């Protein structure tokens, strides 16, 4: 079954994006081609639903991805006919131009258009975000970073932008900065279980990237345990949280040969090996349960991503080479 058109299609795997964009002709045919924006006109013409516009936006994204430019243009035209010179619609128009650009020159032209629009209003968020994304796509990472910092200067409560900044730093290997930006996201959305898990992953990667096993390593591993545990606390049976917890505790148990140095200035010291052992057992048990139910397609366990379940199965089989797989 194709996923819902109401939800953002950005993170979907290619097969589902294809299924979505194949819905485009049906959606375009069944929904009215023009919706009047005047109060009087709306009495006579078809009624409009807010979902329709979200559907069009999402269709543009998935159609551009699958190369169905005509359907994307049609969706864009309808949005433009309804909302006119809206910033958000303009950003979508820019997106279509970006997707259709053949070479660097055309991309530069799109970038120049963005710059012109920003000259009129330099706090135009949708255009600003597109400009940053385009800069990043063209490989001008430092420009994208400074533009992003500028955006966050005038709009510091934009969690999406903080997350982008974190990802940008992460792609350059700047772990402390990436963690800092992710923590800012957490301040804005303290209940987001996926952000907690993401922060845990960043901290785990930061700890293991350098290869050192000193005090900063242990501090970051402790933080990672804390973040993964919090994500599990916020969400029952969270596969990603348990996966991370298992990864961290397994690693800690492996290099536990040397005693953990306890420095007093840390606000969250590494738990003792007994606790780590128990956390590891808990995560293993939970992961095994999730993998078992999910691969059996049991009722009520079908929400997990197949790739994530496969990764969890791999992690579990690494753990038990004697073949405990069911």
């Amino acid at each position, binding site marked *: 079954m194709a996923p819902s058109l109401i939800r953002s299609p950005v993170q979907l795997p290619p097969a589902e994006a294809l299924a979505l964009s194949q819905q485009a002709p049906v959606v375009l045919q069944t929904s009215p081609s023009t919706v009047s924006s005047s109060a009087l006109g709306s009495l006579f013409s078809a009624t409009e639903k807010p*979902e329709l516009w979200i559907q069009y936006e999402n269709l543009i994204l998935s159609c551009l991805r699958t190369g169905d430019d005509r359907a994307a243009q049609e969706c864009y035209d309808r949005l433009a006919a309804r909302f006119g010179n809206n910033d958000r619609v303009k950003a979508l128009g820019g997106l279509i131009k970006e*997707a259709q650009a053949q070479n660097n020159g055309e991309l530069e032209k799109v970038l120049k258009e963005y710059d012109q629009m920003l000259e009129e209003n330099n706090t135009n968020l949708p255009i600003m975000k597109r400009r940053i*994304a385009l800069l990043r*796509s063209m490989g001008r990472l430092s420009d994208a970073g400074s533009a992003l910092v500028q955006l966050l200067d005038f709009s510091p409560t934009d969690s999406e932008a903080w997350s982008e900044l974190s990802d940008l730093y992460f792609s350059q290997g700047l772990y402390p900065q990436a963690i800092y930006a992710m923590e800012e996201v957490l301040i804005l*959305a303290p209940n987001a279980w996926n952000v907690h898990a993401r922060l845990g992953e960043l901290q785990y990667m930061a700890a293991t990237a350098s290869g050192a096993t000193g005090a900063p390593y242990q501090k970051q591993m402790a933080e990672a345990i804390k973040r993964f545990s919090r994500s599990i606390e916020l969400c029952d049976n969270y596969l990603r949280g348990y996966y991370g917890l298992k990864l961290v505790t397994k690693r800690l148990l492996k290099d536990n040969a040397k005693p953990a140095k306890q420095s007093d200035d840390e606000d969250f010291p590494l738990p003792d090996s007994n606790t780590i052992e128990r956390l590891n057992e808990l995560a293993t048990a939970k992961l095994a349960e999730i993998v078992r139910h999910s691969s059996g397609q049991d009722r009520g366990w079908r929400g997990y991503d197949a790739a994530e379940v496969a990764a969890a199965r791999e992690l579990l089989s690494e753990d038990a080479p004697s073949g405990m797989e069911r």
Partner: protein
Amino acid sequence: MKEPSTWDRVLEMRIGGESFRLSACTQLDRCGYGTIGMWPLLPWHFSECSQPVGIVVTRSISKSTAKGIYPNSSTMTLISKSITGFGSLLLAHACYSAQEHSALQSFRAATSAALTLTPTAATSLPMDIAIETAVAILVILVGLVLGTSPMRPIQWREWAGKIEREGEDGFKDNNGQVNRDYLGNPFAYIEGRPNFVDIRKQRNEFTEWVKGQGQEQK
């Protein structure tokens, strides 16, 4: 998780000289709080009360019994509808009986008045009609209650876990349709970042995937 972050509706009321404050978040479903046509009266909505006034009613069904009670959503609606229909039939029958009874009574009163000139006061309904009415209403109630969709989880972790574990399956109504306000993980956009999407990269990845698919088929 204690309370939704945005309280955008606040109602102040005064009962017996004491002021109560009712707050509610209008995006309740997004926060994971189910409503059935009224504001949920949860304990923390009365944070400023000196004495509790709210009644919290939760219906929790363990997983195994839930399977027993709700074998299948479509048969469920059928059972609920037939029970409700049966109850309505009973109620209609009771109404008809009552009407007939009163017609008979008035006819009898008229004839007896003409004959004896002494009015007889027999206005109360017979017991069986009253019982039938009460039973009919109870049956209708049972049918309607069986027909309601299962309650949504109130606790944040349960609700979040349900999204992750069951996905769309967990948010279907009795007709098997996914609830319209179901959005999946509401924080997914923070990681997905739809406004920063690198469309050219996605396009290239997609063409690569299509090529891969084509090679697999050959």
